[in-house]
């Protein structure tokens, strides 16, 4: 109780610290910078914080905190722009927002989707802060109660959301998730260092594929290519429908959903090691399961935006608990945050167990700065959303070249090598075909994101459990089946059972028509072949490295079995059966004036030219040619747009101190930035 007695004065001190004009000024500055960085898909808080780090040394602690917290807090809010307007998951925290947010934009309801998302974000952030104010004092034992079996079960709960997103043919959804997990295992295994589907001769593959690239490839590229082929605007109606006020009203009508998802966000956020990757899927699954009429999900149900967006800002608050209490970062941006705090002032604020005892006022300042930053950030975003939503009415052919520019730049930031662009293109192809043949792309992404945690937690939990079992059977059982684990198992089972029942109603790809057998069977055979190769590859790992091979073997085996069953189904079903879903048969893709390959060739051309002359020179050529030839723009318009695009990308990269992909030319001749 003593700690609660100290808490109130500390809370008062914290408010006194925060509510100074200069602190609020720094906070707003941080929020503005965070907004500018956050709208860039794939950059997010880490890039922004790295930019601030040099200024932190010796800075007045509260000022520095205001600046950094402002920047971190607003990223999960501002990345919503990309998710809703372009169908690009801006970060791992807004993957699920794409599912309903982007269809809303296509329906001409971008402003409504954005403001519903922002209102939910704001509310989530505030609920998170309120909850933390009391909870942070007693959080330590609760965080410690989440051992490896508990974390494994939360990851499995996240994975069980595949059931609800599996699509009309559940086996295809399961196989897509399995394929995602197998793609997630590519590279050097964390545990034993074995190579999986990689070689030291291609160093790029040894690190595995990055989430940014897979997210862009699976979601963004197929949508960009499809819209470009149709040569229209994102929004089907030229005039924007419901405005931002109706989005706020939507949020208010679903306020209890928002409360529940916020709490989910805080609670999952406080568990170190899980991070943002599962939160939004669990929130989305919860949203679907608690909604009576499920038919609208995946086609633009506003609840599908409110749920994940309420959770992902609350998660940031929750993520402060392991960061501040244990000195263990809950995410990449939190890791930099910890490092930066030690640079502040005289360096005597140290994140870790002493934080609550020695710096409770600072702790509370951080919690409430986070909440305030949410308020400022949201207000700015809502103010902007009406105008930015107009982007969806522009003819897409004018947007597409700049989107290709943005996603190439974003992809390059993840590994800073040319292979990033190749990987983006390859994954993009996979995404295009998953979309075409109605294999659940969300299931693939969930599998990819959770591949590493599932493998890590199950291996580690298994090792520790076998150690406990050696001490005694009861010790082992107590370790594995704690009350938390049992509750999570029950929740998972319920979620799977209900999920499968509901899956048929939720068509993430819309109502896809079915056609002839040949194309869908070919795609299935390609996936099956990859799985076979990956299985053989995993099987070749020596047995003493069982930890590196067991997960790929099990997951690959299950996925392969699913593929084979689907293959049998395909052989027995007549043409036109739902299993042969193919977007090229009928619908907007089939009716598009441009073909898939000729459209994709533009993007391939940009990448190939980059390989030769480097990104910026390639971009000049690409923009001019594209605007002249494909968009049929006049010379004046072409040159103005090209200059704007170049100026924008150089300004962003320059401010963030980033390089562009170099080509062969740059290897031969020394050139100044930005050409180098």
């Amino acid at each position: 109780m003593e700690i609660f007695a100290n808490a109130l004065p500390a809370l008062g001190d914290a408010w006194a610290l925060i509510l100074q004009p200069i602190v609020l000024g720094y906070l707003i500055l941080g929020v503005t910078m965070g907004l500018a960085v956050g709208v860039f898909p794939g950059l997010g808080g880490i890039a922004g914080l790295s930019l601030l780090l040099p200024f932190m040394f010796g800075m007045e602690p509260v000022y520095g905190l205001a600046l950094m917290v402002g920047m971190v807090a607003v990223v999960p809010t501002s990345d919503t722009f990309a998710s809703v307007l372009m169908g690009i998951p801006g970060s791992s925290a807004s993957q699920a927002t794409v599912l309903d947010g982007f269809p809303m934009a296509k329906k001409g309801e971008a402003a409504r989707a954005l403001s519903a998302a922002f209102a939910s974000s704001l509310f989530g952030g505030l609920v998170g802060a309120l909850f933390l104010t009391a909870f942070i004092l007693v959080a330590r034992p609760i965080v410690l109660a989440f051992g490896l079996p508990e974390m494994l079960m939360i990851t499995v709960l996240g994975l069980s959301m595949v059931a609800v997103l599996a699509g009309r043919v559940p086996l295809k959804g399961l196989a897509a998730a399995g394929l995602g997990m197998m793609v997630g295992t590519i590279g050097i295994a964390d545990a034993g260092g074995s190579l999986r589907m990689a070689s030291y001769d291609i160093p790029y593959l040894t690190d595995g594929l990055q989430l940014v690239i897979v997210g862009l490839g699976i979601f963004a590229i197929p949508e960009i290519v499809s819209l470009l082929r149709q040569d229209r605007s994102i929004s089907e109606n030229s005039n924007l429908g419901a405005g931002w006020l109706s989005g706020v009203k939507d949020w208010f009508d679903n306020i209890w959903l928002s409360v529940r998802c916020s709490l989910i966000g805080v609670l999952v956020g406080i568990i170190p090691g899980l991070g943002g990757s599962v939160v939004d899927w669990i929130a989305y699954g919860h949203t679907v399961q608690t909604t009576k009429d499920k038919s609208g999900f995946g086609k633009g149900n506003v609840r599908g935006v409110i749920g994940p967006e309420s959770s992902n800002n609350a998660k940031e608050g929750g993520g402060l608990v392991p960061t501040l209490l244990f000195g263990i970062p809950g995410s990449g941006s939190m890791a930099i945050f910890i490092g930066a705090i030690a640079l502040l002032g005289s360096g005597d604020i140290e994140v870790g167990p002493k934080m609550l005892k020695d710096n409770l006022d600072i702790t509370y300042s951080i919690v409430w700065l986070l909440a305030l930053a949410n308020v400022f950030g949201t207000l700015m975003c809502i103010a902007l959303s009406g105008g930015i939503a107009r982007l969806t009415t522009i003819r897409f052919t004018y947007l597409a070249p700049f989107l290709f520019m943005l996603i190439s730049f974003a992809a390059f930031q993840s590994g800073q090598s040319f292979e990033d662009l190749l990987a983006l293109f390859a994954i993009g192809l996979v995404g295009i075909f998953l979309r075409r043949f109605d294999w659940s792309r969300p299931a693939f992404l969930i599998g990819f994101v959770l591949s590493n945690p599932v493998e890590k937690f199950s291996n580690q939990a298994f090792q520790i459990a076998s150690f406990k079992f050696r001490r005694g059977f009861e010790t082992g059982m107590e370790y594995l089946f704690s009350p938390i684990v049992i509750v999570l198992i029950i929740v998972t089972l319920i979620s799977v059972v209900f999920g499968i029942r509901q899956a048929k109603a939720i068509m993430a790809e819309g109502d896809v028509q079915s056609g002839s057998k040949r194309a869908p069977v070919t795609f299935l055979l390609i996936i099956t072949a990859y799985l076979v190769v990956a299985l053989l590859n995993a099987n070749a790992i020596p047995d003493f490295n069982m930890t590196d091979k067991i997960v790929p073997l099990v997951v690959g085996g299950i996925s392969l079995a699913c593929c084979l069953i689907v293959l049998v189904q395909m052989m027995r079903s007549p043409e036109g059966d739902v299993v042969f879903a193919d977007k090229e048969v009928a619908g907007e893709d089939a009716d598009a004036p441009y073909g898939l390959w000729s459209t994709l060739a533009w993007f391939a051309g940009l990448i190939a030219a980059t390989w030769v002359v480097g990104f910026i020179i390639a971009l000049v050529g690409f923009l001019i040619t594209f605007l002249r030839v494909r968009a049929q723009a006049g010379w004046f318009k072409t040159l103005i747009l090209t200059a704007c695009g170049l100026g924008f990308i150089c300004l962003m990269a320059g401010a963030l101190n980033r390089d562009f992909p170099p080509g062969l030319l740059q290897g031969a001749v020394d050139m100044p930035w930005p050409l180098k």
Partner: protein
Amino acid sequence: MTLLKLSRRAALALTAAAGLAAPAMADVDFSGKTIEWVIPFSETGGSAKWANFFAPLLSEELPGNPTVVVKFMPGAGSTKGANWFQEQTEGDGTLLFGSSGSTQFPFLLDDPRVMYEYADWNAVMATGTGGVAYLNAEDGALFDGSANQLKDIPFIFGSQGATGLDLVPLLAWEMLGMNVEPVFGIKGRGDGRLMFERGEATIDYQTSSGYISGSMDLVNAGTAVPMMSWGALDENGMIVRDPTFPDLPSFKEVCEATDGCETSGPAWDAWKAFFIAGYPSQKIAFLPAGTPQDVIDTYTAAFEAVRARPDFKEIASQQVGEYPMFVGAGAQKATDEATTVSDEAKQFVLTWLKDAYGVELN
């Protein structure tokens, strides 16, 4: 590389630093330039913290006060960045590289990904750290300055991998005859400590700063019992108690007190060689191959000025620990120590890695 050659180069560098630094300074001016300090890890690691701490200080001391920016090039366990740095030949002093124990160990163990050669680079600054191992309360009660009563207890240790810095504690415990089972795949020593706090791991170690900020509380609360520090090197190259933890026995003392543990012979030599490579000169800043001597001298002088700041000790203690910071010739000597092990030590470790963990590095 022979010892004679080494010391001659060290002597040369020393004369250069002492005699030529002042006149050379006048020629090198970084006004308006941007210096890139490339770190082969992500923004979130210890090396990032280290470079971000030094970058503004370095900027103040270099002639012309250039902007020093830290750039991150993570990949392939830092070998990607190091391989890239090996290719760089900009000798104008606008490129700096930071390597760490995780870059040194693959080099020493002939990791197939390594295509870099430390001897080509010019070390300008190095800092070190120490480490402390500790036990859970129950088993810690059996620790009496020797590991004799710990030999029959199975321990669990959360490890980042046997070929990294964790090699040093794992080999130490093995030499003491302890039965420590590593659980691989954690992503940082903080995660290892959390696993220990949850009771899943029963033995742990932290580098000095991690021990002071995180684990000391556990010791004070009685949930952890410190076992030993790795020790520190005195000027004769002998292992003595770590001055940061004068009350803790060094591994050498514990080994001497434990039946069956030898402080001589191939195992000990191998342990000592890898300890030296991983801890006393853990993080090193390099200029690329072919950098002219006057640029190297300018950097040496700048880092010396950083070290001489009256408040340096205070501000550094949190960031880099209270360990010596080597500059110029001292940094070069530290690099030589960190990147050379005898063939016997290397072979011993490679064989042990294969037998104990099935790790083969080629």
